[in-house]
């Protein structure tokens, strides 16, 4: 038969079932072949710092919602390691295309959390400049941003730029046609792109077992002829190391790959959700015992990388972040309603003059 296989040995594409884990539940480091840790002390501390900040910022998000300051908020509690570890593997010139739950990744990219929250407050539909931090717009229509990530990566490649794009999405998102088309395009064009799936076990109320019958999410990579990796998403070192490998692969021109970071959403889907309807306290407790921060803390303490001064410094920073978020959000006034007509077109239609005039009249009549 002439229809020869398109890559030499598909068996090599089969992901290992065992997720890469570097730090066990007790915070003990185990080296894993192929996943060397190229981290300095400063990096270890930074990973910890980002996780703690993410948790604090997240908590502040929930609180602001409870206080009526945000319409809704989507918590990342429990996913700190997965988010931070993934994004930490990127260089400055690289880009992240997030969904709506990526406050942790946003922090790593240097995005002001207060700006992210404006979406949830409803001040504007997005408030940060993606070009400043290389962090794309939050994307609510599930899986759609994966295609933007691929297109961006195709652009970078065409332009000959050293630039890797990481697209975050969820376990549920893997069912959408757009996720499929994105992975296929990326593979076909060898786009420097990493698909980073936070498998937090649920799509709102729907558990992974009802979402797919794939052996694992990582196995979906086989159908695109790209590598699929699994990692313990509650182990920040594994999340980092696996992401790093995928990022370096993309950077070296070897094409895209898919990462399944196995984690758990400890909070409700959003503040509007009631998770008691679909999951048990036992399940929650089980995952609580695998807390990503506690585990890393044990490790760092043992390594002598975590002293009181550093803790205090992070604590101060976290407090400052939270304070600034409250400041930026609390009773933040909406902007000028007339801005509704801005940014829709660079060259707006003539009819906007009439509509703007109508709104102006309405505003004056108030």
């Amino acid at each position, binding site marked *: 038969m002439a229809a020869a296989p398109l890559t030499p040995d598909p068996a090599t594409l089969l992901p290992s079932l065992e997720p890469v884990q570097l730090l066990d539940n007790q915070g003990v480091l185990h080296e894993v072949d192929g996943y060397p840790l190229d981290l300095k002390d400063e990096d270890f501390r930074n990973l910890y710092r980002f996780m703690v900040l993410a948790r604090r910022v997240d908590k502040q998000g929930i609180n602001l919602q409870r206080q009526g300051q945000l*319409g*809704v908020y989507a918590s990342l509690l429990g996913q700190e390691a997965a988010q931070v570890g993934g994004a930490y593997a990127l260089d400055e010139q690289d880009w992240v295309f997030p969904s*709506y739950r990526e406050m942790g990744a946003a922090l790593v990219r240097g995005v002001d959390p207060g700006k992210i929250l*404006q*979406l*949830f*407050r*409803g*001040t*504007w*539909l997005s408030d940060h400049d993606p070009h400043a931090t290389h962090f794309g717009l939050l994307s*609510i*229509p*599930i899986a759609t941003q994966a295609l933007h990530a691929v297109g961006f990566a195709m652009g970078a490649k065409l332009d000959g730029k050293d630039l890797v794009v990481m697209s975050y999405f969820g376990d*549920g*998102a893997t*069912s*959408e*046609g*757009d996720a499929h088309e994105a992975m296929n395009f990326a593979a076909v064009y060898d786009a420097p792109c990493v698909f980073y799936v936070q498998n937090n076990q649920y*799509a*709102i*109320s*729907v558990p992974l077992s*009802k*979402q*797919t019958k794939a052996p694992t999410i990582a196995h979906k990579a086989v159908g695109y002829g790209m590598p699929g990796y699994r990692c313990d998403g509650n182990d920040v070192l594994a999340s980092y190391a696996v992401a790093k490998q995928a990022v370096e692969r993309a950077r070296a021109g070897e094409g895209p790959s898919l990462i399944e970071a196995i984690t758990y959403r400890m909070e409700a889907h959003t503040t*509007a*959700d009631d998770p008691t*309807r*679909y999951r048990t306290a036992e399940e929650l407790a089980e995952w609580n015992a695998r807390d990503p921060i506690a585990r890393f803390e044990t490790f760092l303490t043992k390594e002598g990388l975590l002293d009181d001064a550093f803790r205090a410094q992070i604590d101060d920073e976290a407090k400052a972040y939270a304070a600034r978020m409250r400041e930026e959000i609390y009773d933040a006034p*909406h*902007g000028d*309603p007339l*801005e*509704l*007509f801005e940014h*829709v077109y660079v060259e707006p*239609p003539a*009819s*906007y003059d009439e*509509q703007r005039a*109508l*709104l102006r*009249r*309405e*505003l004056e*009549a108030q």
Partner: protein
Amino acid sequence: MAITMAQALNTALHDAMEADDKVVMFGEDVGTLGGVFRITDKLQERFGEKRCFDTPLAESGIVGTAIGMAMYGYKPVVEMQFDGFTYPAFEQIVSHLAKMPNRSRGTVQLPVVVRIPYGGGIGAVEHHSESPEAFFSHVAGLKIVSPGTPSDGYSLLRRAIDSPDPVIFFEPKRRYWLKEDAELPVTTEPFGTAVVRRQGTTATLLAYGPMVRTALDTAKAAEEEGWDLEVVDLRTLNPFDAKTVVASVAKTGHAVVIHEAQVFAGFGAEVAAQITERAFYDLEAPVLRVGGFDVPYPAAKLEEFFLPDTDRILDAVERSLSF
């Protein structure tokens, strides 16, 4: 008894499943959770996982498999979780759900109902407040329904499920908690019958779905101005009840059509064009259209400036009367 729109819809689904075991229900989170708005609450408990089930997260998949199930002989009622998430299913709806009965020369019937919680006014994040009814109204083969009251919610949803033709059922999500004194089951007029919700003589307000309540509130407010507004609730956009609409406008001579969607190329244009074609000499002013501005649905804090409200409607009435 006071019932809400949400209760009416939930009861309609329940009663339809009770009445006909060919009725099956599926969509994202409609099973265990009972839907994010709880419109399918307790249906899985009552009818089992086979007749009310959660799907993977894929809207084209939901509508596409509903088409297949309908070909087999079932009557699927599927939920698009929010208006803005109907778009991935656009191809299945436009190219197949709407066309297959015709393509097949009637050998295939598709009694499918696509339920869509739609519209704004609830302070939601983006893509959760869209009004896509104009898109689907422009597609032959579909019936387009949007109830404005709990009674209509119940009755029209029962009729939609019984309909041999595919129905896009737009639920005015900001009116899920709207109350009405009504006893279920209730039967209101069939598809293609608009209803005069308030008699008046000064001008006619035409509305559907979420804007029916707003139109009625406006008519009340207009009394202060000495205006006696008639309010027509279209109920079904397709079939469109030109008769009732024209009769009202013939009486008042003034018409204002209201919807949340942006005005440009919106359904209001169709209503305006039909009225003008059919009641040209009765019109004392052009039919005016009130809706959202021609901009993307804005952030929650700005939606009040985007959405049509009593003031914007009264302004249009005034412009019409002084035309």
